[in-house]
């Protein structure tokens, strides 16, 4: 008999994941050492665009070298890499070979590979490769790339435009005609680098006689890697096993099918030995996808009291040199999110995807939604300033009231639930909004050289990507379901097999809590199995804040199925009707008959022994569930940021940051807080610290941790967090995603604060990142000075 359990859901359970991570007993891909492994190193083009002739023959004579190939050598054996989201029928999707054949199209484009007995030998031998680079004109700027006569990234395509997309909702002309207030702004979403702490790594071990392959990869998406390796190599999917072992962060950058994965697979097949490749950090900056990189032209029309009439959005989105897995779709994931939490009569969204000679872009934490949220939240502050209305009051005049949910917004999304009033009330209280406004007024009056700015962000985001039908209608090749299996073993221990693939999010802990509550078993009795296509064959992996809202619901449903079967069997064993049983604390007890009970562990053993089963019931206590999400869920929150800006040096310091998030029901508040902390750090990094910058020749000049300046502990404040709780109505757990919320919310909160500090000086925008230099320039330009 099990004892009564405490409620697991809602408890700040310490993570099961930690034990091996804090003791160094880890299995990062690069840690795996197999006998006979050879190591691959890649030669990458130092030029952003060049015709190449590559001769690797001398490298083959170098010490320890097993093989060396140019792109031309492998042109017939290596398929092009996939882009799985055709955003328009007439998109341009140029071939993307893992090793460039005739032309390199960005600095870092791989052009040759050496395989040697040690990594050092492979790297050494790269120097022996002879390459003729014939420089070609480089195009880096999106507007220049679209101009007539621009150099082309892909000559055969005849254009640098990847796609043009536009949608209009409502009567835009009517909304803008005679509008008393019209505000136009251009915002630049600078290019960012995810910088997951673990660089990418892949190891492919073949069993040549059987034609079987085991692939370890530092990836968010082992199931997709398996699928695409099969499709691209011709090896049957059933003979490929992909394992995502310990994975050191991803943030979208490992949501991809990479050249090196296909290359290592092809080389392992060709050489009949294990092949390993591990990225250096310098390579990661060049060859792992970048994020953001949009130019946003916005126009907002409003009534004299600030009620929004319409919003016009025109984006240029930098694809980089090639399309990776989801590249063109990223800006379009923001398509419906520019309206934010606000009501309006009309909305237009237009986007042009543009190729440039730079590293390809793809998902980075938030993927299209941070860009949209930044734009609308910045515009709300601009509108408030224009009309001399407090920015929180301006939001109140336009947001969806809590009594209006579910609410179908202008772009057609139905927001499931929310209470913007409650989150905002709590945030203003924690922040001492009025007190800080008073201090700001005082400092302005006193002409304090250090001014105080207050930034607001009342964000929402679309998470739980996505109903499969929705994805299919928009050109995505895959679906949005998630799979789970829950089984109670003969000893009463429980295994939950999940299709999501965590890399820091704590699924093992969170899902253990869900299963423990459902089956009434101890938290420690639940094991969660993931990230191995042999052990968890069905799944669509981890991205888009989907793992709990979709995957967690699948686990819960599977556990419910197990419970249902267990109840039927318990009734059979106890010779009563199921209606006579009540389940609590892991026990099926016969109502009114003390002592007549079966624990779920006893039932599991009975199901295993199968000596006495109801007619037609299959032995063992196990169930699968494949969950198709009904719709997205929409977490939201109010973030308030106070910054001090030194008007003499341009230095920005965050003085306080309050985040009140509403992510629906919470399974583990400690993990949720951790996700918010990390998300805030990355959003603040965009606002204040980071940019992937290129020189005129297309060299990435911020290609190390020193130059790219990801924030250190000394750069960030302590955050004040709280939550409100408005359950989602699109899933039975009432949960919403939280992985991206902090990042989405914080960037505009910080930049709004910086601009707010400087508004008395005539500043209406500061380009990101708001470094001392950018702040100083904005100040001087606003004051008519030459910056």
């Amino acid at each position, binding site marked *: 008999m099990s004892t009564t359990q405490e409620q697991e859901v809602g408890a700040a359970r310490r993570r099961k994941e930690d034990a091996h991570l804090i*003791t160094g007993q880890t299995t990062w891909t690069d840690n795996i050492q197999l006998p006979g492994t050879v190591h691959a190193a890649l030669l990458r083009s130092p030029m952003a665009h060049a015709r190449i002739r590559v001769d690797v023959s001398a490298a083959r004579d170098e010490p320890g070298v097993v093989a060396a190939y140019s792109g031309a050598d492998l042109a017939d054996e290596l398929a092009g890499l996939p882009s799985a989201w055709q955003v328009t029928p007439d998109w341009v999707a140029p071939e993307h070979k893992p090793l460039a054949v005739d032309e390199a199209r960005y600095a870092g484009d791989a052009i040759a590979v050496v395989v040697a007995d040690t990594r050092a030998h492979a790297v050494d031998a790269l120097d022996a490769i002879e390459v003729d680079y014939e420089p070609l004109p480089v195009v880096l700027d999106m507007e220049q790339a679209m101009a007539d006569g621009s150099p082309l990234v892909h000559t055969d395509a005849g254009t640098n435009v990847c796609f043009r997309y536009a949608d209009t909702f409502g009567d835009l002309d009517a909304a803008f005609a005679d509008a008393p207030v019209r505000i136009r702004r251009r915002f630049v979403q600078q290019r960012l680098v995810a910088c997951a702490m673990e660089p990418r790594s892949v190891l492919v071990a073949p069993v040549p006689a059987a034609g079987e392959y085991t692939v370890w990869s530092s990836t968010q998406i082992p199931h997709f890697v398996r699928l695409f390796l099969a499709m691209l190599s011709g090896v049957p999917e059933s003979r490929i096993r992909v394992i995502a072992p310990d994975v050191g962060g991803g943030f979208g950058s490992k949501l991809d099918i990479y050249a090196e994965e296909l290359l290592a697979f092809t080389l392992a097949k060709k050489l009949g030995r294990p092949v390993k490749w591990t990225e250096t950090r310098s390579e990661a900056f060049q060859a792992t996808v970048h994020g953001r990189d949009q130019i946003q032209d916005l126009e907002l029309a409003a009534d004299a009291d600030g009620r929004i009439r319409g919003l016009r959005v025109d984006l240029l989105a930098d694809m980089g040199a090639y399309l990776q897995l989801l590249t063109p779709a990223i800006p379009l994931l923001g398509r419906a999110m520019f309206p934010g939490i606000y009501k309006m009569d009309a909305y237009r969204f237009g986007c042009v995807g543009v190729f440039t000679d730079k590293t390809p872009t793809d998902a980075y934490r938030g993927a299209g939604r941070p860009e949209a949220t930044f734009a609308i939240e910045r515009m709300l502050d601009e509108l408030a300033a224009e009309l001399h209305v407090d920015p929180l009051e301006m939001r109140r005049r336009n947001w969806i009231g809590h009594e209006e949910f579910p609410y179908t917004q202008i772009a057609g999304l139905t927001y499931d639930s929310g209470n913007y009033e409650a989150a905002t009330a709590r945030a203003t209280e924690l922040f001492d909004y009025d007190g800080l406004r008073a201090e700001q007024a005082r400092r302005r009056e006193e002409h304090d050289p250090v001014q105080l700015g207050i930034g607001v962000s009342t964000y929402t985001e679309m998470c739980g990507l996505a109903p499969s039908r929705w994805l299919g209608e928009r050109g995505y090749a895959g679906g949005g379901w998630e799979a789970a299996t829950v089984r109670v073993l003969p000893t009463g221990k429980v295994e939950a097999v999940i299709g999501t693939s965590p890399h820091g999010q704590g699924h093992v802990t969170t899902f253990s809590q869900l299963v423990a509550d459902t089956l009434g078993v101890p938290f420690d009795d639940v094991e969660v199995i993931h990230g191995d296509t042999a052990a968890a064959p069905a799944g669509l992996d981890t991205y888009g804040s989907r793992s709990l809202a979709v995957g967690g619901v699948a686990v819960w449903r599977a556990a419910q199925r197990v419970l249902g079967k267990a109840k039927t069997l318990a009734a059979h064993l106890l010779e009563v009707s199921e209606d006579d049983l009540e389940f609590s604390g892991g026990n099926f007890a016969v109502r009114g008959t003390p002592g007549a009970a079966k624990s779920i562990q006893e039932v599991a053993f009975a199901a295993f022994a199968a000596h006495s089963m109801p007619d037609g019931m299959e032995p063992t206590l196990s169930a699968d569930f494949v969950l198709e999400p009904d719709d997205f869920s929409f977490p939201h929150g109010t973030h308030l940021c106070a910054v001090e800006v030194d008007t003499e040096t341009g230095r920005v310091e965050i003085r306080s940051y309050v985040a009140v998030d509403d992510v629906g029901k919470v399974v583990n508040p400690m993990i949720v807080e*951790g996700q918010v902390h*990390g998300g805030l750090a990355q959003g603040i990094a965009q606002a204040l610290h980071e940019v992937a910058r290129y020189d005129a020749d297309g060299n990435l000049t911020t290609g190390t*941790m020193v130059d790219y300046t990801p924030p250190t502990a000394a750069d960030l404040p302590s955050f004040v967090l709280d939550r409100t709780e408005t359950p989602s109505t699109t899933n039975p757990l009432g949960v919403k995603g939280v992985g991206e919320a902090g990042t989405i919310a914080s960037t505009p909160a910080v930049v709004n604060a910086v601009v707010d500090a400087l508004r008395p000086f005539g500043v209406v925008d500061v380009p990101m990142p708001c470094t001392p230099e950018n702040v100083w320039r904005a100040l001087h330009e606003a004051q008519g000075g030459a910056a």
Partner: protein
Amino acid sequence: MTRISVSVDGTEAVDEIEPRTLLVQYLREQRGRTGTPVGCDTSNCGACTVLVDGRAVKSCALLAVQADGAEVTTIQGLANGELHPMQKAFHEHHALQCGYCTPGMIMAAVDLVGEVADPSEQQVREGLEGNLCRCTGYQNIVAAVRDAAAEMRGAS
């Protein structure tokens, strides 16, 4: 090849190595101490931090030959029968997510607390400036280090 004699996590060994071998490569590839990961190639991220004769060192910034005769402690040698207070505090405060920076962060924090027994929040933040974390936003790391410092003060 050069001969070095290094104690790693309490185990003495004499090895022949290429002189250019970095300490972290030696630890990972020749001594199998893969608990210490590599996060960059410019000595900025701190993921590979270990203790050399008790002081925190980025093991990518030291040649293995420079550790000749030294006592190296990695994350795998920190627990002495039971978890080190710093390890416990990282767990208790949810000071790690993906865990890749964690070995270096913990070793750097152990060194920091050895220097400053009762560090303020600001001292922890500045003391760990050489160790990057991309997951946690550092807040829980700071709390963990201060908590472990209190525990270590009490124990001594």
